[in-house]
């Protein structure tokens, strides 16, 4: 063990290392803390404050260049607790028009980390948001008196017309989930929550800019860094030109007043949505600024659901409007010829099954059957097609039928540029196999031929059916934005899709729809000088029938296709036809005749009572 002592002197090396390290550190600290001013200066100006500069949000115009949605300046009042000293609370409250209790509660809430998770003693916190210029002028004058308070310029939406609440959508504070999904957003940012504002959020929002400011150790702004050389200017949001005709939208919403339902009009050639009304509606302006929270709560509690855009979110049985699509399918599949006649004795009667119909001549070929909306005709048609020897089984026949429906834009989302579009429902053979345990035939499912039973469509899909017939077999996916500034539209909205039905069959159906207006169920839609084509719909449901209309005009080279759907409105001719006719007249002639104006007022006044049920 003696040799242990040989290395005893090494303890000095170890001690030397320790002392050396400590001396090295002290020397380094001496350099950092005493010799070198640079770090101190850095901290004195306390690095940089990257202040966000918000871009102005894109503006929306209608198809004729009328301003619809623009921006108004608004101001956020911020407070930094650390710098809130010697505050004259009374004069602050007075200048902002708030009570002392409100002030105290607000300060307490800001400090509450549960209510305000981003709270820090040292950084600006939102005291009051989105003040309008008039509320704010007095405060701005006296701002110098209030230590720790500052203002941040924001913009809020300004609407020129009080229609289209659910269509335009609104702006709300970004949620935690949205922040996680997109790095662009930070707490307190605003984001489109519904409608166009939400779908075109990325185009409308622009790019935030930054202002690099110098801040001292007490958090006070000491000016701009390098005179703004490092600043990044915000990029304003892109403006949108909507395909909407605001006059048409105003008329549609007016006609739907006191009723639940929707009106959709499409320009067949382009798929541009000319109007999209959903009733009940609300003034978009009420969801702007400080009162948004309260109003939003009221709207979402309303049993008639005004926040719902029924034109794309409501799914309804299409009723007789669907017969046009059936006629096309049966013709294409050879189940019927235009000349084929079927008997109707107050309905379809076969093997003990009875589907009712109203009184009209019998038997009828296709064109008058469409014009009079004969149920029996289309029941026979479907029965023939499902039982046709062309198909190995009912399943195969129904699959073919379903393929036709899907090609016409049913059963799947059309892909409109709005969030929340519903698919509707087109049953397939697997659905019925499950439903009826595999034992079903044309008779079992006969009601789908007249747009009842399991089939549901959105008003947009019904309008698109009108546009497809108007185009004789093709459609461009409907869209509400005609042009995004400096951007090309999605190819979905530029190139047509084709159905699986030949053009000649469309001509037959157009003839039937024209006949309906001239001598059938849609006579009220017969406008002087315009060849209107139409089809009523009267959809049975649990309550009173829904009143529907689908049509387009003029017959040759159509300019507008319309779908009207009024919940519990009764026969198609009661609400559907006159509303559809007024929309077409307004769009095609630019105005309403005196008689029509009278009719419009009359419809506007009529109230449908829905009771107190949840819709």
């Amino acid at each position, binding site marked *: 063990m003696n040799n242990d002592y040989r290395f005893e002197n090494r303890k000095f090396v170890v001690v030397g290392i320790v002392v050396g390290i400590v001396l090295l550190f*002290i020397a*380094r600290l001496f350099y950092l*803390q005493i010799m070198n001013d640079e770090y101190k200066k850095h*901290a004195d100006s306390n690095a940089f404050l990257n202040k966000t500069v918000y871009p102005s949000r894109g503006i929306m115009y209608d198809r004729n260049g009328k301003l619809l949605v623009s921006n108004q300046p608004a101001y956020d009042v911020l407070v930094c607790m650390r710098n809130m000293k010697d505050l004259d609370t009374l004069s602050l409250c007075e200048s902002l028009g708030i009570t002392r209790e409100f002030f105290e509660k607000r300060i307490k809430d800001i400090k509450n980390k549960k209510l305000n998770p981003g709270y820090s*003693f040292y950084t600006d916190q939102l005291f009051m948001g989105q003040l309008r210029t008039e509320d704010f002028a007095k405060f701005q004058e006296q701002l110098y008196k209030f230590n720790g308070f500052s203002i941040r310029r924001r913009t809020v939406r300004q609407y020129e017309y009080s229609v289209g609440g659910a269509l335009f959508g609104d702006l709300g504070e970004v949620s935690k989930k949205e922040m996680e999904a997109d790095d662009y957003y930070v707490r307190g940012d605003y984001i489109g929550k519904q409608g166009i504002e939400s779908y075109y959020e990325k185009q409308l929002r622009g790019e935030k800019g930054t202002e690099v400011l110098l801040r001292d150790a007490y958090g006070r702004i000491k000016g701009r860094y390098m005179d703004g050389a490092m600043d990044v200017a915000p990029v304003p949001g892109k403006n949108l030109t909507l395909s909407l005709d605001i006059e048409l939208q105003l008329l549609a919403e007016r006609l739907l007043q006191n009723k639940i339902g929707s009106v959709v009009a499409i320009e067949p050639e382009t798929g541009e949505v000319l109007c999209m009304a959903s009733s009940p509606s609300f003034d978009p302006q009420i969801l702007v600024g400080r009162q948004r929270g309260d109003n939003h709560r009221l709207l979402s509690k309303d049993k008639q659901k005004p926040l719902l855009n029924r034109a794309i979110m409501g799914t309804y049985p299409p009723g007789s409007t669907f017969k046009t699509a059936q006629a096309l399918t049966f013709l294409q599949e050879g189940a019927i010829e235009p000349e084929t006649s079927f008997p109707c004795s107050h309905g379809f009667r076969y093997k003990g099954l009875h589907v009712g119909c109203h009184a009209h001549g019998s038997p009828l070929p296709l064109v008058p059957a469409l014009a009079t909306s004969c149920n029996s005709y289309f029941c026979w048609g479907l029965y023939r097609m499902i039982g046709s020897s062309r198909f190995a089984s009912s399943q195969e026949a129904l699959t073919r039928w379903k393929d036709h429906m899907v090609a016409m834009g049913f059963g799947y989302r059309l892909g409109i540029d709005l969030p929340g579009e519903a698919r509707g429902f087109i049953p397939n053979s697997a659905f019925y196999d499950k439903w009826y345990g595999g034992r079903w035939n044309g008779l079992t499912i006969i009601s789908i031929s007249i747009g009842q039973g399991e089939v549901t469509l959105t008003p947009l899909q019904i309008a698109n059916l009108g546009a497809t017939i108007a185009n004789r077999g093709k459609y461009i996916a409907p869209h509400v934005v005609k042009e995004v500034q400096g951007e090309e539209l999605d190819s979905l909205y530029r190139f047509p899709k084709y159905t699986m039905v030949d053009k000649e069959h469309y001509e037959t159906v157009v003839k039937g729809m024209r006949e309906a207006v001239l001598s059938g169920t849609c006579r009220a839609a017969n406008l002087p000088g315009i060849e209107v084509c139409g089809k009523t719909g009267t959809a049975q449901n649990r309550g009173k029938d829904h009143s529907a209309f689908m049509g387009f005009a003029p017959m040759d080279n159509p300019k507008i296709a319309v779908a009207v759907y009024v919940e519990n409105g009764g026969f198609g001719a009661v609400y559907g036809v006159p509303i559809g006719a007024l929309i077409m007249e307004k769009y095609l002639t630019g105005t309403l005749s005196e008689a029509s104006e009278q009719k419009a007022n009359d419809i506007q006044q009529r109230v449908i009572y829905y009771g107190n049920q949840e819709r």
Partner: protein
Amino acid sequence: MAIRNVSLWRSVDWFTIILYLVLVACGWLSICGASYDFGDTNFFSFASNPGKQLVWAGCAIVIGLVLLNIEKKYYEMIAYPLYLAFVLLLAATIFIAPDIKGSHSWLVLGPIRIQPAEFSKFATALALARLLSTYGFSMTKRSDVVKMIAIVVVPMLLIVLQNETGSALVYLSFFLVLYREGMTGSLLAVGVCAVIYFVIGVGQSENMFQNMPVNVGQFVVFLLIPLFTALMTGVYSKRMKRAWGIMLVNLVGTLAAYLFSHFVIPFDICIVQLALCVCTSLYLLFLYLRERYASYLLIALFALGSIGFYFSCNMLIGKLQPHQRMRIEVLLGLKDDPAGVGYNINQSKIAIGSGGLWGKGFLNGTQTKLNYVPEQHTDFIFCTIGEEQGFLGCTFILILYALFIIRIIFLAERQGSNKFTRVYGYSLASILTFHLFINVGMVIGLAPVIGIPLPFFSYGGSSLWGFTILLAILLRLDAERESRF
């Protein structure tokens, strides 16, 4: 029992205990400073970091008192089983620990998270002490050396596998213990050379000479290799002529190559340097073969090894994990991005620099509070001291640390022939030194950014308990020193 306790309290080293308590108290105050956010922060509330740390400290003192009452013979007895148990625990941790920021080092037991790597240090220290104090142990016996190295390296590798490279590097500090116990000093010298090659070779690897295709890092390393080789030749062979000769030939050769490259045709003069280095090695090998003097062989191997080391470093740096590579690169000034990894060091230097001579005063630091400095209450706790207590406060803390470590070395040295306690004491001193060097060095921008805590200061129970256990055992071992004489 009573008698033993009296003698324990009389023989235990109170000076160390007081230093320990002062350090823990200063640490707690720093955590208060780092966690302080607003006037009504309650330092004693269990919800706040200082409150929790107070509880950890209380527990640490209880643990320390219990360990102080366990006799030395038991520590000697359990040294190996304990070491084995910890090796198994470390291995198990790799598989059962959840992924926390990429590392698998935390065992989660309900609300408590424990890092076994913090506790395996004392087990390793005990095992090493036990091995080195075994009768007949010799640094010259190969089997003993293998055992010795294995005791240090096994837990180290396991911790690397947990993705906690920082904690694993701490085990390198045991080599300082081995040095004190007689490991050859040239190994330490080789280690220093390796660090220099690494820092210069990798650090300057992206700089080129202006007018020729020569890498600055490579050039300097290849210049240093013959210089070190010549130095070693001089020291070990005592034949100064040969040392001068090697140095001259290399310098003149390099100069000639440089001039040729500069004036005639630009080329990579490192090729010439490399050739000169290889020639130098061959010359030393020739000397070894002729004179049969082993030192020549070793020096030749050193020169060749240096070249190999340089190239493998360059290769290896490409294979490191991205965050580790970034940290090394930032330290060496390779990637100076204030918003990236270098941001931490930059902000912590600003925070410390802004402290000045006197500091901004307790709880008055702004840099550490405006969230400029990350991890301010754990790894970057020294920032808060620098900002709030200034140069004087920092110096005080550093001197306190130096005193503490030197006192531990003193305790280790006063054991006479009791090698167990001495090895253990040196282990503690070395571990503390390493932590101090890396942690404070990192904060003031002298050492790489390796996330290891500053003992007694950084927030966290595992670290505080780990070091308290290490210290309590030493105090007990030291208290029993007289009984051996």
